C-alpha cells in the first residue's frame, strides 16, 4: 500500500507538470496583440530600410564602410572561427541590383505592416532582415536585435487576421475564401489559435532572457551599484538627444534611477508574471525605454522595446477594437440600460407637467439611440448570418467527407468479405 502511494506521488507530479506545461503552451490565444505588434514591427522595419536607402551604397556593396569582402571575412572564418551568419548580400555589388533589392524589401515590409498577404510577407520580411543583419555587421545595435526577434515570432502566427488588409479582403470575398482551405490559410479568420499562443509565450520568455542577462551584465559593473551609471549615460555626449545633465545636481535621484534600473532588469523575468507586480514592471519598462527614446537618442530602440513589452498584454484588452463586433456583450448591456432609462423618463410616471420641449428633445435622443441600436443589430445580424452560412458550408463539406469515408470503409469491408468468402 505504502509502496503504491510512493510510486504514485512522482507519477502525479509528472502528470500535473505536463498539464501545466500543456496549458501554458497549448491554450489557444486570440491574435489581436500580435496584430498590433505586427503594425509596430512592420513600421520599424520599414523605417529602418527607408533610412538605409538614403545612403544605400555607404552600407551595401563594394564601396561601403564595411565592403563586401570584409563583411564576408568577418563571418567566414578568415579572422578566426567561422559562423553561420551568411548573407547573399555579400555578393551583390551592382548598384541597380542593390536598389532593386532595397525596393523589394521596402515593399515587403510595408505589406507586412499593413497586413497584406501576411502569411507570405511575414516570413519574407524576416528572411530579408536576417540577410541585412549578416551584411551590416559593425553598424548594428539593440534595435536590430529586438526587431529581428519580433518578426521571427510573428511570422508563424495569424497576425494578419486582425487590424489588416487581409481582414478586409477576407470580409469582401468571404464565401470564396472560406470554401478554399488554401485561401482560408492565406487570409486567416480572427479566432484563438495555439500557434498565436506559442509565439506569444516564446517572445515573452525571450524578453525575460534579454532583461535577465542585461541586468546580470550590469550587476558586474560598479556604477550600477554605486548609483553613478545613469549619470554616465546622460552625460554621454554622443548618445544625448535632450540634455538631462541638470539631473547630475541631484545625486540621490541619479542613484535611485541607476539602482532601480538594475533591480528592474534582474527581476523582470520573475515579476512580470504575477498579477500584483505586472503593471509595475510594465510601467517601469515604459519609463526606462521611454527615457532611452527621449533622452539617449535612440527613439527607434526605445519605442520598439515598449512595443515588444506589449506582448504581456492580454488579447481581451484589444478585442473591443477588433474586427468582430459579434462578440460584444458589455457594450450591448450599457446601451440597453441607457435606452431603458430614456424610455422610463418619457413614460406615464415621468410627470405630465414636464416641459414639452425637454420631452421632445429626450424623445429624439431615445429615437436616435434606438435607431443606432437597430442599425448595429442589423449589421450584427448580417455578420451572424454570414458566419452561419460559413459554418453550414463547413458542415456540408464535413458531411460529404464523412460520406466519402463511409463509402470507402464499406467498399473495404465488402472487399474483405469477398476475399474471405473466396478463401473459404
Amino acid at each position, binding site marked *: 500500500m505504502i509502496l503504491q502511494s510512493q510510486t504514485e506521488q512522482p507519477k502525479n507530479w509528472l502528470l500535473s507538470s505536463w498539464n501545466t506545461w500543456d496549458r501554458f503552451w497549448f491554450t*489557444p490565444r486570440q491574435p489581436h496583440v500580435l496584430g498590433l505588434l505586427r503594425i509596430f514591427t512592420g513600421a520599424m522595419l520599414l523605417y529602418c530600410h527607408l533610412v538605409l536607402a*538614403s545612403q544605400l551604397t555607404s552600407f551595401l556593396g563594394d564601396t561601403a*564602410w564595411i565592403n563586401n569582402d570584409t563583411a564576408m571575412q568577418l563571418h567566414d572564418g578568415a579572422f578566426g572561427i567561422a559562423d*553561420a551568419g551568411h548573407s547573399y548580400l555579400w555578393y551583390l555589388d551592382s548598384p541597380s541590383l542593390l536598389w532593386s533589392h532595397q525596393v523589394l524589401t521596402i515593399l515587403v515590409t510595408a505589406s507586412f505592416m499593413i497586413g497584406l498577404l501576411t502569411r507570405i510577407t511575414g516570413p519574407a520580411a524576416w528572411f530579408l532582415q536576417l540577410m541585412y543583419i549578416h551584411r551590416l555587421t*559593425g553598424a548594428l545595435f539593440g534595435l536590430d536585435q529586438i526587431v529581428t526577434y519580433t518578426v521571427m515570432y510573428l511570422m508563424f502566427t495569424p497576425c494578419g487576421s486582425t487590424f489588416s488588409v487581409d481582414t478586409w479582403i477576407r470580409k469582401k470575398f468571404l464565401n470564396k475564401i472560406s470554401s478554399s482551405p488554401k485561401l482560408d490559410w492565406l487570409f486567416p479568420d480572427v479566432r484563438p489559435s495555439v500557434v498565436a499562443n506559442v509565439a506569444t509565450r516564446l517572445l515573452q520568455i525571450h524578453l525575460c532572457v534579454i532583461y535577465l*542577462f542585461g541586468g546580470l551584465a550590469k550587476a558586474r559593473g560598479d556604477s550600477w551599484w554605486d548609483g553613478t551609471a545613469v549619470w554616465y549615460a546622460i552625460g*554621454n555626449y554622443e548618445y544625448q538627444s535632450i540634455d538631462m545633465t541638470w539631473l547630475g545636481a541631484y545625486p540621490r535621484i541619479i542613484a535611485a534611477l541607476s539602482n532601480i534600473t538594475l533591480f528592474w532588469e534582474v527581476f523582470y523575468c520573475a515579476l512580470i508574471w504575477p498579477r500584483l507586480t505586472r503593471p509595475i514592471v510594465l510601467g517601469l519598462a515604459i519609463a526606462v525605454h521611454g527615457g532611452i527614446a527621449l533622452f539617449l*537618442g535612440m527613439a527607434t530602440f526605445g519605442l520598439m522595446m515598449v512595443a515588444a513589452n506589449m506582448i504581456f498584454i492580454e488579447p481581451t*484588452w484589444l478585442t473591443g477594437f477588433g474586427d468582430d463586433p459579434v462578440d460584444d456583450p458589455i457594450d450591448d448591456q450599457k446601451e440597453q440600460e441607457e435606452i431603458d432609462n430614456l424610455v422610463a423618463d418619457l413614460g406615464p410616471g415621468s410627470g405630465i407637467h414636464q416641459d414639452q420641449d425637454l420631452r421632445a428633445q429626450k424623445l429624439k435622443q431615445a429615437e436616435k439611440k434606438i435607431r443606432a441600436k437597430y442599425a448595429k443589430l442589423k449589421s450584427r445580424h448580417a455578420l451572424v448570418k454570414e458566419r452561419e452560412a460559413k459554418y453550414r458550408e463547413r458542415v456540408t463539406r464535413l458531411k460529404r467527407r464523412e460520406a466519402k469515408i463511409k463509402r470507402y470503409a464499406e467498399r473495404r469491408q465488402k472487399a474483405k468479405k469477398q476475399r474471405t468468402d473466396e478463401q473459404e
Partner: protein
Amino acid sequence: MSSSSDIGQQSDEASHPADAETPVQRGNWKRSLISVLIIVHLLAVALPPMMFQSGGSAIVTTLLRPLRAYTEFLYLDRGYAFFAPDPGPSHLIDAAVTQSDGQRTETRYPDREQQWPRLLYHRHFMLAEFLTEIYQPPGPPRELAQIDRPAAEQWVRLRARYEHVRQSLVDHLRTQNDRKPVAIRRVEHLIPSAAEFHAGDFALNDPLLYEVLLDLPITVAPPQVVPTESIPAPAAVQDLTAPVDDASKDTASKDDAPKEAPDSETDAQQNADSEVTPEPDTAGVKS
C-alpha cells in the same frame, strides 16, 4: 482602458489559462514534438548570453555546440549587455582628407549635422564603436609566440581583422572624396564625473576630453631580477626608502608623460607601411 486590477485578472489567466480557455485537443505525440522544439529553441535563446557572461563554462560550451549554427543564423548569439557592465566613454573616428592643394580637412564620425535622421547617425556611431571594439595592437610580442603559439596566432588573426576593417573604412572615405588620400584615427571621448561637470571643470564636449588612441605595440618589460640580499631588513627600511621612491618616480614620470597625438596622416602612413595583411584563406589563419 483597463485598470490595474484588470491587469491582475489577465495575469491570473496567464498563470492558469485553463480557467479561461480550454486547450485544443491534439495528438499527444504532436504536442510532445512541438514541446521538444520549444525547449531546443529556448536553449538557443538562453545559452548565448550565458556563454557571454560565463566566458565559456564547460557545460554551457557543451550544450551550445550543437546549437551554434542555429543561434548564429537567427542572430541569437548576443550577450544583451546594453550599457554594461558600466556605461563608458564613446569611441569616434577622425578622418583627415588631404586636398589636392595639400590642405587637410578633418571630419569626425559620427556627426549629428551630417548624418540625419538619428538612426543614420547611430549607424555611423556604431561603426566607430566597432573599430575600437575589435582593435588589436600590433604584435604579437615575440615572447608570446615562444610561450603560447596558439595565442600568438589568434593575435595575428585579430590584428588582421582590425586592419581589414580599418582599411575598408579608409577605402570608403577615399571613394567619397574623389580618391584623395585619407587617414583615420580612433578617438575616445571621456565623460566627466557629475562633480567635475557641475563644478564647471569640463563641458561635455570639452576638447580635453577627446583622447587620441594610439596604435602602438605592447612591449613586454624585461623581468627585474631582484637578488634576495637586496631585500632590506626591517631595521633598514627607513634608510632605503629614499632611493626606491626615486626610482619609482622616474618610472612613473616616463609612463605619465603626455602622449603626443601623432600627425594623423603620418600615423596612417606608418600603419599602412607596417600593415601586414595575412591572406584570409591561408592554412595558418584557418587553423
